């Protein structure tokens, strides 16, 4: 049972890490701000989500698991909103500070 849980964790965290890597490559290689933002937010949502899901069975107790989930939800909230704000800022005239 323990080994099955560990395999589950390794698989999901690896998948999460893969998304982070893909997102970083996108951030470096994509041509303009909006596509780069797209790459970045995908990583926040999916990569971190996979890592948190993978770590859940390893959490000691319900409270730790809830903490992990709230970290993910908060990052998702701030990531989604900040990307919207940056996207709006690119639409405004004038050079960035």
């Amino acid at each position, binding site marked *: 049972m323990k080994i099955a849980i560990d395999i589950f964790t390794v698989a999901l965290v690896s998948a999460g890490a893969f998304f982070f890597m893909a997102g970083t490559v996108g951030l470096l290689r994509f041509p303009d701000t909006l596509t780069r933002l797209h790459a970045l937010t995908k990583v926040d949502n999916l990569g971190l989500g996979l890592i948190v899901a993978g770590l859940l069975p390893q959490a000691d107790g319900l409270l730790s698991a809830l903490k992990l989930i709230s970290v993910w939800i908060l990052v998702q*909230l*701030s990531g989604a*909103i900040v990307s*919207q*704000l940056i996207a*709006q800022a690119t639409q405004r005239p004038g050079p*960035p*500070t």
Partner: protein
Amino acid sequence: MTYDLAFDISLAGLLLAIALWTIVARAIFPAIVLFMVYGLLLGIVWVRLSAVDVALTEAAIGGGVTSMLLLGAAARLQGKNVASEQLGLPGRLAAALLCIFVTAGLAYAVFLRPEVAATLAPMAKENLAESGLGNPVAGVLFVYRALDTLLEKVVLLLALVGVWSLAKDEMWGGIPGLRVYAQPSGILVYLAQVLPPIGIMVGIYMFWAGANYPGGAFQGGTVLAAMWLLVMMARLQDVPATSAPWVRLCLVVGPVAFLAIGLSGFVFAGSFLGYPEGHAKPLIIIAEATLTLSIGVTLALLVAGPPERMPQR
């Protein structure tokens, strides 16, 4: 073990690279963003050194508030004709010499440290139970070195007075020129409505947990400051005039409460900032609670900047 070592070495390498890049970066904005990244990475370094209290402070103050202050300063400089002064050769030589001197001093301290480090840690830990606190860092801050902590808060207030005094004479006591969004963006308002309840809870928890776990007034206060700034920037609440009585009260209540507890130590414990036996913990909690509020308001007003307009009557 080797994984840990590899991680630490790459972390240190990354930190040095970012530090170098911060200095080399020519434009102001990238330099500030790099400084922010540097602060957050440094926070991770402190976690690796098991100094979680310092890590929280570094991430909140070093990465967060300081970068906000720098961004504000950069925004003020923008569009103004700032004469950039180039140092002459003697100036550069003096700067280089000073840097070499400091680096040599640091290298001396790091490489030629004594075999057995002089430490007060075991003594501090031994007597910690008397204060009723569980977190040794809080013990040092509020029991052993309480005077330093008190003065630190007063310095913070002085810094705010320094920022305020940049205002024009007729604007003294007016409303700080915090950049608020002229057209409230729906999504920012949404964030400013959803996040503060969570943030305020986290801020209060950080101060409350600080007695026994990593955390404390400074970290909690920074989170509260961030929430208040968010609400003001989204125009859900107006920026208050710096002369408003409740603002002034919030600013001084922490240091005044701490000072009053310190002075009462003369009567009840026989020394300044001494705590009467058995009552140390509640007194420390009172001091920390009021300090959390004061630090939050002070930091937010530091970011808000000097007064720029008068309240309309």
